[in-house]
């Protein structure tokens, strides 16, 4: 433990907790069995606060704060679940579903998808926004994997795992706003990427069916993520 970190005391959902000063609200909540939904966050990768699903209410703050990147502070009073938060979270999910073409019934990740299971868990029974139906492409030029931009939610887990764990930095992000897209190398077909090692880490950290192994039929793409904390741990030991 970092000796300088010190200990903070705080309240989450009207329960008292103590935590290290370098811990985030999300970490403390998880350690104590409090559920906060996340999509972009993954243990073993850096946090970016991209999906905004982990927003929580903090007393005396006039805005909602993302639990994954907000460090605990002394005397903090946090609410992880309220009608307002539920409504916002459902809206975020609805917007994710309308932004691209998420057709669960014929998706390789059907039944094993974090976006789908979160929508079920948070009670997203209707989508109140018009669907955009963009004409997104599938890049199947890689011999073993494919990227289906129709299913991508831009969580950037693939970008981070490739950069931080594999060290290749094949993936990156281009464009802004609604035109944002994940790209390999300098926006060239994945199959012609010179940096990709073909390790498949990006495929397995992807929360949806956007990255998958070729040849998988509908509902057959199971993601295995056990390697990530294990790899991180092994590297820390070596350092």
């Amino acid at each position: 433990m970092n000796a300088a970190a010190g200990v903070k005391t705080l309240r989450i959902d009207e329960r008292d907790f103590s935590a290290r000063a370098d811990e985030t609200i999300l970490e403390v909540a998880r350690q104590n069995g409090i559920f906060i939904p996340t999509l972009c966050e993954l243990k073993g990768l850096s946090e970016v606060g991209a999906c905004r699903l982990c927003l929580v209410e903090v007393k005396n703050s006039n805005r909602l704060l993302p639990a994954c990147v907000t460090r605990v502070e002394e005397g903090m009073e946090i609410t992880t679940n309220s009608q307002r938060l539920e409504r916002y979270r459902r809206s975020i999910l609805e917007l994710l579903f309308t932004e691209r073409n998420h057709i669960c019934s014929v998706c390789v990740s059907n039944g094993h998808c974090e976006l789908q299971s979160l929508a079920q868990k948070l009670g997203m029974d209707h989508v109140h926004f018009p669907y955009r139906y963009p004409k997104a492409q599938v890049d199947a030029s890689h011999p073993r994997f494919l990227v289906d931009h129709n299913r991508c939610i831009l969580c950037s887990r693939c970008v981070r795992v490739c950069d931080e764990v594999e060290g290749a930095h094949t993936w990156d992000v281009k464009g802004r706003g609604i035109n944002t897209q994940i790209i390999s190398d300098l926006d060239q077909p994945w199959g012609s990427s010179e940096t990709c090692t073909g390790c498949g880490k990006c495929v397995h950290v992807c929360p949806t069916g956007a990255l998958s192994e070729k040849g998988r039929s509908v509902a057959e793409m199971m993601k295995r993520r056990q390697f990530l904390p294990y790899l991180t741990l092994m590297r820390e030991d070596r350092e």
Partner: protein
Amino acid sequence: MTDKAHTTVVIDPVTRIEGHAKITLHLNEAGRVEDARFHVTQFRGFEKFCEGRPFSEMPSLMARICGICPVSHLIASAKACDQLLAVRIPPTADKLRRIFGLAQVVQSHALSFFYLSSPDLLLGMDADPASAHIFGVFEKRPEVARQGIRLRQFGQQIIQRLGGKRIHPAWVVPGGVSEPLSAENRDAILSAIPEAQQIATQTLEWFKSTRENFREEISTFGNFPSLFMGMVKPDGGLTFYDGHVRVADESRKIVADNLDPRNYSDYIGEKVESWTYLKSTYYKPSGWLDGIYRVGPLARLNVADRIGTPLANQELAEFHELQRTAALSSFYYHHARLIEILYCVERLAELLEDPEILSKHVRAFATPNAFEGVGACEAPRGTLIHHYKIDEHGIMRWCNLIIATGHNGLAMNRSILQVAKHFVNGEKIDPSMLNRVEAVIRAYDPCLSCSTHAAGQMPLRIQLVAADGRIVDELVFPEG
């Protein structure tokens, strides 16, 4: 009389069929039916929107065409994908797919016969349309309705036991199937077979005993010479999963045999008409209109020399005696459907008793090795063909589907014309006349959502249209 000249009757929507359609009957000055058209009114576009998708998604994507026969689409699609992979699937996977397909035929035929057509056969063609449905059958002959539901349940439960769910299972995959069959599921299916066989036999006996009541319908329900097309085994036996295409004429004489389904475009022509979304097909060597042929249960039994199971084979021999020619009346679709149910139940038992059926080796893996594949099988309603082209990365670039109901497009049109000429007369439409027009369509058991890939609300409208295009009378079912 000029004001009475050329009237059109429109039946919209057509009821108790799968999908959406309307029928127009064109009357001449004398009030006699001159022309009839079966319009399929919706469009879905599966061939187009699957472009750009990975081929491995195709079986499940195509299964979404239909909630009644998703299994047939799964099988035809997976067979096309097997060709893209250029693999030979494990023998157990082949047998499991056959079981899946047979179960599908049982449930689909039971749906057609008991749920959709038995009201016509049991309650009569003149029955009040308000009570002509499965609940009406329940009131009059509860045991028949119950048996129909049991039989459909039998087929659906097999699909669920193998594929995990009854509708749109994703179990059939390129290269085989995704999961082997467990001993527990095999035993459960086997234990249900005696009851299913008894229902099939009893229904067949009952149907044969009432056939005489429908002489007028038999003689007018699409009773005309045409070609018949279906897949047969190398020995000429009935098959649903694999085989070559055979075409026979009205006297059951073989016109063409050993046709490879992969070369379907050599002998099947496709034509689009401006008044329907149904793509009509014809036998190319005979040309448009003369190349009219029928597919489905009636055609399969007309082209097959034998059925490989004892009880059904006996029934087939009797069926071949019905007319000196081939069984020409489309009313006999019902009869053929019942014989096929019996065959499926018998064949299911044979396949499930095979010791190899529990093998765990049920899938071959490969990356695409061919850019083009054609998969064909006999769906409940007839020959089903899926034709795919992919690029070097396995992405769909082109797709053509020939659906059973499309093969029957020309024959259905000719059949309603024959029925309408016989039963419809004058400017006032009598629902019982029109029910016969609908009933002949039901005999074909068309699945319009499959054949046009339609979406929207259900069924039938009949319009009586004058020569000047004026709609003189119109009936809509269900009303409102």
